[in-house]
C-alpha cells in the first residue's frame, strides 16, 4: 500500500536536511522509516543507487521492484556499516540524510572491478 508520507501522523522528517527542488536524490525522503517487508514506490530507485555505489554484488540483478526484501536489507546494513552510521537496517532519518547528501561518483566498494575505472 502507499506509504503514508503525507499524512499528519506520518514519519518525523525533522532530521532530514532542507531540500532543493532540483536535488537529484530528494525523492528518497518518501522512504523514511521503511523497513523489511514493505513495498514502497521508490525502493527500486534506491536499489539502483546502492548498485551504482557498490552495495549490491551484481549490478545486473533485478533492481526494478519496490520490495524492501532481505537483499535490500543486507545492502542497507552494509551501507550503514561502511559510512559509519548506526546499523539499524532501517531507512531512518540519519541514513536517508546520508543517502541524499551529494557525493563522489566513485563506488564505495573496493572489491568490485567496476570501482573507479580500474579496468579502463
Amino acid at each position, binding site marked *: 500500500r502507499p506509504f503514508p508520507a503525507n499524512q499528519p501522523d506520518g514519519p518525523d522528517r525533522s532530521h532530514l536536511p532542507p531540500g532543493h527542488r532540483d536535488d537529484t*536524490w530528494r525523492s528518497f525522503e518518501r522512504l523514511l522509516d521503511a523497513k523489511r517487508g514493505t513495498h514502497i514506490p521508490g525502493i527500486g530507485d534506491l536499489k539502483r543507487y546502492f548498485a551504482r555505489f557498490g552495495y549490491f554484488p551484481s549490478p545486473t540483478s533485478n533492481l526494478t521492484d519496490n520490495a524492501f526484501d532481505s537483499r535490500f536489507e543486507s545492502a542497507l546494513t552494509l551501507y550503514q556499516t561502511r*559510512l559509519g552510521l548506526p546499523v539499524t537496517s532501517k531507512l531512518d532519518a540519519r541514513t536517508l540524510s546520508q543517502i541524499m547528501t*551529494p557525493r563522489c561518483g566513485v563506488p564505495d566498494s573496493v572489491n568490485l572491478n567496476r570501482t573507479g575505472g580500474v579496468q579502463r
Partner: protein
Amino acid sequence: FAFFPGEPRWVRSGPLTLTYAIGPTDAVDYIPRAEVEAAFRRAFRRWASVIPVRFEETTEYEAADVKVGFYSGDHGDGEPFDGVLGVLAHAFSPDSGLLHLDSAERWAVDFRVEGSKVAVDLESVATHEIGHVLGLAHSRVKEAVMYPSLSPRTRKVELRVDDVEGVQALYGSNPNFTFSSLFESDTSSAPK
C-alpha cells in the same frame, strides 16, 4: 583509508613528477578561470606536502598526466553525471589521470561571494578527487577528505591523519612532512 583493487599507483623511475592540465572552464564562466586554477593549485599542493610527489601545471592538455574537465550528462566514460547535486564529480585510479566535475553543479570558490543554497566548494571536491587520482578509494572516516559525501556550502580541504596515512602507504612520506603540521585535534587521535 582504502585502496582500489590491486593498489594501483603512479610509478616512475626517479623522483615522481605528475603534470596536470585543466580543460575549458566555459561551463563555469561565473568563476574566473584564474580562480579555478588557483583552487586546483592549492588542492594539489596539499597532497604534495605529505608525499614525495611534485605536481606541475601545464597547458598541454592531451599530454598531461592528470586531465581535469567539466562535463555534463553522458560524457563518454560510462559514468554519466546526473544534474544538480547527486553525484558531484568522479575520478579514475592510477594511471588513468582523469578527473571529471559535473558542470551542472553551482561550483563555488568563495561562499562569501556565491550565495546559492546548492553551491559546492570546488577546492574540497578537487582535493577529494585528486586522492582518487593518486590511488585512494573512499574512507569510512567521516572527517577524512576521502569520505564519499560532501554537503552543499561545506568546505573540507584539510587532509586528516587517515588521508595522510593512506597516501603515504602508496608513495612514502615527504621528507619535510610531520604529523604535527596537521590539525591539533587530528594529531591527538593519531594511532602512531
